[in-house]
């Protein structure tokens, strides 16, 4: 594309299209992004439109012969689906636990390892480790840890309780799911917080210290306000992820140890996307399941926009680095 810098020896009244500088630049740009663009059209846009249309049909994933347009029936049915409502309730409950507790933990971990302490690299690695461990393995870690037969948790509780024969996965499956989720996500959030902390100029904190602020005051009045953009980022991604949890409850279903994955999780962990997954892939209700997922997308989008609106009041973008 070096031709773009040529100075033409004589004035050409109407240059051929491909010689025009802006056209060549546009062609270059579109050629460079073409892999994504083609992929986006074929694997993104068309499937999304298809999925949206599918949600107005009775599509079963196999037969086009029986395909019927059912209008808004799927959506009407979804709004009256008792299972879907129950599942949405469980999902919102899980989100209400996992997001605030997780966020506070991520921030606390980042503040802790950002101090001048010995072995801070080792601590960082330990906190980051669960984030690296794949879900399948993470679920095994907690399944075995809370197992009433060979798990360590009940043994440890035995030190303070008389006979803690607690069947965690049967009696408190949501607690296990929440701990697993928080533990698994903490490292990722911590790293983003660390990056944010390292972006705060040290002079701000030093100036406050010189003015006599205590360490707690510096954290409260200098560090936290400057971190609000990062808190906001982690909050939004945390909510988006929490509303879509699917694999963990599926794999966490107790059943006969290990023969269970893919079966229905216990009622307490029957989350919204689990419900959609079962409607689609087990009952082959592709049309209805798609409608369920679009409703979730609407909820996710609505919550994100709502947060974006409130963010003007508490997210602080004032300081140029």
């Amino acid at each position, binding site marked *: 594309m070096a031709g773009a810098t040529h100075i033409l020896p004589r004035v050409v009244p109407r240059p051929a299209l491909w010689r025009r500088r802006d056209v060549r630049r546009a062609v270059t740009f579109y050629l460079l992004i073409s892999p994504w663009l083609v992929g*986006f059209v074929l694997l*993104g846009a068309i499937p999304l439109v298809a999925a949206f249309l599918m949600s107005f049909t009775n599509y079963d994933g196999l037969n086009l012969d029986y395909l019927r347009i059912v209008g808004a029936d799927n959506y009407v049915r979804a709004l009256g689906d008792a299972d879907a409502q129950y599942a949405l309730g469980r999902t919102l409950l899980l989100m209400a636990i996992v997001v605030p507790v997780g966020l506070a933990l991520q921030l606390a971990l980042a503040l802790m390892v950002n101090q001048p302490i010995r072995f801070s690299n080792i601590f960082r690695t330990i906190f980051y480790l669960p984030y690296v461990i794949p879900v399948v393995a993470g679920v095994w870690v907690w399944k075995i840890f809370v197992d009433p037969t060979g798990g360590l948790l009940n043994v440890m509780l035995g030190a303070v309780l008389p006979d803690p024969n607690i069947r965690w996965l049967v009696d408190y499956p949501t607690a296990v799911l929440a701990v697993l989720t928080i533990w698994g996500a903490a490292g990722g959030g911590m790293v983003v917080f660390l990056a944010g902390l390292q972006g705060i100029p040290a002079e701000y904190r030093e100036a406050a210290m010189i003015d006599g602020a205590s360490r707690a005051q510096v954290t409260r009045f200098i560090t936290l306000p400057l971190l609000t953009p990062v808190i906001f980022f982690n909050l939004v991604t945390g909510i988006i992820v929490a509303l879509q949890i699917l694999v963990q409850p599926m794999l966490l279903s107790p059943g006969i140890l290990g023969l269970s994955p893919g079966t229905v999780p216990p009622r307490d962990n029957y989350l919204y996307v689990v419900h959609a997954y079962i409607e689609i892939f087990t009952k082959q209700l592709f049309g209805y399941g798609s409608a369920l997922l679009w409703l979730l*997308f609407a909820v996710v989008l609505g919550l994100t926009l709502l947060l974006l609106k409130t963010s003007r009041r508490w997210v602080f973008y004032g300081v140029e680095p």
Partner: protein
Amino acid sequence: MSSRGALAPVPRASAETALRYGPVVLAATAFALPIFWVVVVSLKKQSEYGSALFPADLQWVNYELAVTLADFGRFAVNSLFLSGAYALLAVMVSALVGYGFARHQGPGRNKLFVLVLATWMVPGLVLFVPQFVLFARIGITNTYWPWILWGLSGSPFAIFLFRQFFASFPRELDDAAEVDGAGPLRIFLQIYLPNAGPALAASAIFMFLWVWGDWLYPGLLLHQENTTLAVRMANAYVDPHGNPLQTVTMAGVVLYVLPLIAFFAFAQRFIVRGIVTTGIKG
């Protein structure tokens, strides 16, 4: 840490030291204990599983059984191929596209970039269900083609990462190369790519990890013979009577995770730097 030993603040009182180290040690213990327990169980005799707290003799044979009882090698090769191919394709394509967005002008560029970010926000299953129907219609379920196609179209996350990363490069380099007659592709390959170390490493690791750890899509798209280690590891090992072998299962889980941990221990600094330099700050 020792390099700045002379300047490091000396803790004034032991109370302050306790306050500084107490919570972090406690948290680290809580994080690591369940993982530690997996290793302990993986070294027990199956008869010790419900009875003894720690193994009397370390049963390394469990690791041997984990490999031989499940055709571990074959599934590991499947996982390695699928994760490696996807990561390689997705990273190269995303770097190229990110370079396009960062350095080249075209009508609708900003709107298209918003689309990149929007696809990142659409719930995964919303997108996957119609893709699944498409893959089934063109007959590429039970093959690795879906991952190749995903790789060839890049990853929104990585495109975003590379765009941010390349936007901070000095433009003078391009101008100089352009004067020398280099086209955009050569500028990308000879100037941008060789200088993108941290972003390449960080995104390659995440892309690899995504496929290595994914249980959902191989479970839906592949069958029992050509599936990945993640799907195989979701099921417990059993003895000939169908009783679960927790000890061998945990050995298998350790073998499944260990390469990732080794990889990460090596690459950790790239990840933090990749995130810092791309400025994901909301």
